[in-house]
C-alpha cells in the first residue's frame, strides 16, 4: 500500500476514534448523534480499505442514513436536554475500566502470536471480493438460514417497537363512566359519540351551560307571564338530568 493508503487509514481511523469520543463526551444527546454519524462514515471508509465494499455501503445507507434518522427523531421528540452531572463512583471507575480494557485488548491482539496479524491480509484470489454479488450469493446459499432468521428478527423488532411506542387507546380516569351517565344533549345521540368523546363532552358542557342560562332566564320570567313555560320545562328537565349525571 502506498502512502495514500496510509494517509487514508489514519484520517479514517482518527475520525472514527474522534467520533466515538464525541459520542461519549458531548453533553447534548443531539450532538452525540451527530458525532456518531461522523464515526459511522469514518468506519465505512475503514471498511472500504479492508475491501468490504458492500458492508461499507450498507453501513452508510442503513446506519448513517436510516437508523440515525430514527435517533434524531426520537431525540427531537423526547427532547435531549443537557445531562446533569452527578458525582458517582462509576464516573471515576468507568474510564479507568475502559483504559484497562483497551490496554488489555491491545496486548491480547499484538501478543496473540497470529502470523498474519502483521501482514496486509491474505492475497485475495477472487476478483470480486466483498462485492454485493459475492455477499448476496453467500447469503442465498451458504448462509441462507441466518439470513432468514435475521429477516424474522427484523419483523419481530418492528412489531415490538410499534407495540411498545403506540399511544394507549381507551379513556383515562373515569371519563368513560362520565360519558355513559352523562346527560344527552338535544339531538346529539350516538352521532356525537362517533364524533369523538371529547367533542361529546364539550357538547354536554355547552348544553348544561345553556340549560343553566335558560333556567335563570325562566326564573326571571316566571312572575310576569307563563310565556316561557316550554323553555322552562326544557331547562328544568335538562337540569334534572344534569343532577342525575353528577354534573
Amino acid at each position: 500500500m502506498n502512502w495514500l493508503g496510509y494517509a487514508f487509514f489514519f484520517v479514517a481511523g482518527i475520525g472514527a476514534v474522534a467520533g466515538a469520543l464525541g459520542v461519549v463526551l458531548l453533553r447534548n444527546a443531539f450532538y452525540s448523534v451527530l458525532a456518531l454519524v461522523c464515526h459511522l462514515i469514518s468506519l465505512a471508509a475503514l471498511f472500504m480499505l479492508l475491501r468490504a465494499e458492500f458492508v461499507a455501503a450498507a453501513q452508510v445507507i442503513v446506519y448513517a442514513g436510516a437508523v440515525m434518522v430514527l435517533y434524531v427523531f426520537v431525540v427531537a421528540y423526547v427532547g435531549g436536554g443537557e445531562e446533569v452531572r452527578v458525582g458517582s463512583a462509576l464516573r471515576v471507575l468507568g474510564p479507568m475500566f475502559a483504559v484497562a480494557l483497551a490496554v488489555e485488548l491491545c496486548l491480547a491482539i499484538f501478543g496473540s502470536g497470529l502470523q498474519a496479524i502483521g501482514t496486509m491480509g491474505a492475497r485475495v484470489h477472487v476478483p470480486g471480493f466483498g462485492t454485493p454479488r459475492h455477499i448476496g450469493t453467500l447469503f442465498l446459499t451458504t448462509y441462507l438460514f441466518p439470513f432468514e432468521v435475521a429477516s424474522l428478527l427484523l419483523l419481530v423488532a418492528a412489531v415490538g417497537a410499534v407495540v411498545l411506542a403506540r399511544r394507549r387507546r381507551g379513556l383515562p380516569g373515569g371519563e368513560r363512566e362520565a360519558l355513559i351517565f352523562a346527560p344527552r344533549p338535544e339531538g346529539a345521540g350516538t352521532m356525537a359519540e362517533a364524533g369523538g368523546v371529547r367533542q361529546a363532552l364539550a357538547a354536554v358542557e355547552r348544553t348544561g351551560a345553556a340549560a343553566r342560562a335558560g333556567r335563570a332566564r325562566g326564573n326571571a320570567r316566571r312572575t310576569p307571564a307563563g310565556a316561557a313555560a316550554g323553555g322552562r320545562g326544557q331547562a328544568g328537565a335538562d337540569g334534572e338530568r344534569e343532577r342525575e349525571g353528577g354534573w
Partner: protein
Amino acid sequence: MSIGWYLAISAILFAIGAAGVLTRRNPLVILLCLELMLNAANLALVAFARMHGGEAGQVFALIVMVIAACEVTVGLGLIVAIHRRNLPIDVDELSQLNG
C-alpha cells in the same frame, strides 16, 4: 496498513463505548454507546475476514448490523414509552426493577 492496526482501533472503539455505557445516564446516549461497541466488533470481524481472505466475516458483520438495528428499534420504542408516561429519561432514576 497491517491488520493489527485495524484490530487496535477496534479495541479502542470498544473501550470507548464501554466507558460511555458505564458513565452516561441518558438511555439514548447509552444506546449510542452500544452502537459504538457493536461497530467495534464489526470492524474486528471485517478485519479478520480480510486477514483470512474469506467473506464469512463480512456476512457476520452484516448480520450484526441487523441485530443492532433491531436493538435500536426496540430501545427507542422503550424510550418513547417512558417519555409518554412522563417518567424521567434517566437510568439512575428508572431503577424500580432492582428493588
